């Protein structure tokens, strides 16, 4: 049952919706001139409104979460403290809203991650701009963010599915937004077709799970709440083949969204064709949201069929995930080796990173509760660092692509002589992706491997470590192109403010969280 007091708990989502409508509406009030100057003006106003608005939403969400500043009980009562107190009363905790939307710490942390990623993306989009329909472009980014926020809190099949669609449909449109570029149009269509089929698979799995749960209930009178994850988990504990089939379909459907091998074939093409800031957004925020939804689905809906990460008992979703993780880590890294297009290379690298995150999900199934908590913390930390790093890397690439006219390895040549600060920022991101200490990527990988090892998936960790070493080759190839190979063209590359700010956020985040991981781990451990 939805109550009025639940509205503050949905505040970030409501603010995002308002912001999206505001961006759409303000575009109508702009002057729609034909001259390039007028069009630029129109694009810029939408872009800055989006960036500022997302910044404010992030601020409100941070304040509401109470992770940075928690209002003490003894604070004096005045206008400002009342605002903060009311905000924080809607913070993490409490039962799921109407049984459908959980507002626990996991949701709150994931919301911060997603809104943050959207903010960085909108900073990138300040400089890499659409040529037509700017209001819709930026509004779609916000709508997609809204979908992701709903996805991480979804506690019920219907809302989970709707949130996935609300995330995906804007992303299909955004991937194909630059219609003058045939690559972009292809990416949009491909993403749409694969997404539609994966949605169908996911829906099939959900309906099977619902059928199995209905079966377990017997003749109960009211089964309107049977789409909730935990209710399905209760009623399907003893049913056999059907719920396994449902689990397989759901994992496959989510696997398409997350681009884990063997469901990855769409992602390099889409990542390559989509506008680069959108690629950054797809590869970070939507992946993070998908992983958190997958975590909720697996742990709440299928707790009876967990299995164990050591794989001494066959079956359960751990076995499926172990196979997926193995394939993803190996094929993702090996396929990245021969790539000559940097966007494709980073696409395969992000497939490989998805494999490491699956390893973190596996650790959740460990026998010891301590290992389970560690597994979830490691997973969240990995998602944070990975998102920051990838946003930075794709952001730098967006700038290089815009100014050198392409994103092949040859376009990177001699970047250190064309713009040293940009090359250095890009280098930090790449080294973090490769996992070089003291950057965040190193500690994230180390942590994931540690919890994986403790939970018993030793052989998988060994393979992942070997593949990390393999991955060094293609990451270092990027550095070689930037610093060693001679430049074919020495015109300097400028670093505009929007992308510069986004890169600075990413690099500072990676450095600080890598050297002082406790800053964020203390928050993540509350999950």
């Amino acid at each position, binding site marked *: *049952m*939805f109550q009025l007091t639940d509205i503050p708990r*949905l505040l970030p989502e409501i603010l995002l*919706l308002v912001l999206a409508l505001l961006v*759409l509406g303000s575009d109508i009030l702009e002057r729609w001139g*034909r001259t390039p100057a007028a069009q630029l003006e129109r694009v810029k106003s939408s872009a800055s409104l989006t960036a500022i608005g997302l910044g404010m939403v992030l601020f409100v969400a941070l304040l509401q979460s109470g992770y940075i500043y928690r209002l003490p009980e003894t604070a004096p009562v005045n206008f400002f403290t009342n605002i903060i107190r009311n905000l924080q009363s809607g913070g993490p905790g409490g039962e799921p*809203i*109407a*049984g*459908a*939307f959980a507002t626990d710490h996991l949701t709150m942390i994931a919301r911060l991650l997603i809104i943050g990623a959207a903010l960085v993306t909108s900073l990138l989009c300040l400089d890499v701009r659409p040529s*037509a*329909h700017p209001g*819709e472009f930026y*509004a*779609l980014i916000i*709508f997609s963010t*809204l979908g992701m926020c*709903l996805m991480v809190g979804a506690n*019920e099949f*219907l*809302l989970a599915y*709707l*949130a996935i*669609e*609300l995330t995906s*449909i*804007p992303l*299909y*449109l955004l991937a194909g*937004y630059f219609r003058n570029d045939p690559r972009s149009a292809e990416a949009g269509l491909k993403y749409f077709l694969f997404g539609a089929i994966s949605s169908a698979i996911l829906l099939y799995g959900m309906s099977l799970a619902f*059928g*199995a749960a*209905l*079966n377990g*209930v*017997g*003749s*109960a*009178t*009211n*089964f*309107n*709440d049977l789409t909730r994850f935990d209710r399905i988990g209760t009623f399907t504990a003893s*049913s056999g*083949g*059907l719920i*396994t*089939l449902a689990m397989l379909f759901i994992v496959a459907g989510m696997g398409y969204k997350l681009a884990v091998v063997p469901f990855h074939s769409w992602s390099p093409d889409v990542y390559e064709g989509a506008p680069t800031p959108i690629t950054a957004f797809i590869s970070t925020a939507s992946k993070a949201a998908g992983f958190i939804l997958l975590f909720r689905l697996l742990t709440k809906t299928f707790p009876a069929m967990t299995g164990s990460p050591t794989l001494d008992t066959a079956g359960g979703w751990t076995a499926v995930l172990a196979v997926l993780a193995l394939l993803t880590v190996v094929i993702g890294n090996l396929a990245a080796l021969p790539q000559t297009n940097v966007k494709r290379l980073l696409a395969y690298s992000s497939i490989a990173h998805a494999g490491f995150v699956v390893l973190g999900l596996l650790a959740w199934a460990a026998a010891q509760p301590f290992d389970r908590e560690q597994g979830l913390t490691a997973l969240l930390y990995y998602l944070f660092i990975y998102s920051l790093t990838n946003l930075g890397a794709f952001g730098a690439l967006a700038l290089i692509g815009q100014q050198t006219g392409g994103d092949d390895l040859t376009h990177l040549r001699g970047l250190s002589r064309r713009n040293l600060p940009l090359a250095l920022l890009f280098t930090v991101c790449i080294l973090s992706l490769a996992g070089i200490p003291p950057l965040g990527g190193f500690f994230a990988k180390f942590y994931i491997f540690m919890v994986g090892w403790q939970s018993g998936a030793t052989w998988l960790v060994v393979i992942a470590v070997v593949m990390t070493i393999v991955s060094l080759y293609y990451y270092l190839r990027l550095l070689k192109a930037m610093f060693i190979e001679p430049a074919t063209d020495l015109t300097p590359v400028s670093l505009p403010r929007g992308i510069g700010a986004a890169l600075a956020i990413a690099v500072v985040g990676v450095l600080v969280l890598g050297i002082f991981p406790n800053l964020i781990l203390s928050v993540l451990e509350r999950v």
Partner: protein
Amino acid sequence: MEVVVQITFGVIAVFILVAAAMVVSVRNVIHAALWLIACFFGVGALYMLLEAEFLAVVQVLIYVGAVSVLILFAIMLTRQITGEGVRQLTNRWPVVLAIATLLFATVLAPTLINQQWNVPPAPPLGTPEPIAGPAELGRGFVNEFLIQFQVVGVLLTVALIGAIVIAYEERARRRKVLTLAEELELKRLREQTSPTVPAPVEAEPVVQESRSASER
């Protein structure tokens, strides 16, 4: 009674499956759309069989009435695919069929058949159906499924925006909409001038229109 219901279900199910198969296999796209309408009708009949009269009526009104008209309009306004020559199946469809049948036979069918589908017994006469009636449905929308209901609203808005973004072109780039006679004339002309190489379809009217726009 049971038997009658089961036979009816069988007939409807076969009808839906045949119609769906025709949708993806006929060559003429308009025929495919008509088969899709037949498929929608069958689904409406299934709802009727499940005693969800409201859903059945809505299905017929919205899918058969509105959505199919929309599809037909979209086909008619899209110039290149109105012809007969569209192939929906590749040469390798028997292989795909074999793989799909194999998967279905080995994984899906045994699981689904071995499952004891425990259908809850019918409630005593006079009690309302859990969610089938419009009143219950409406109450569900504003109580238990309020968030989902709102999210559907946002989702449809986004889809609307997306459709406009895809379909709407800025004025300078917009193509002149031709009448059917003009289209046929254009097609005939093109076939006369270059019978072997198909000319780029979009090129001519776009150029004309943009030139006249710039002259203005």
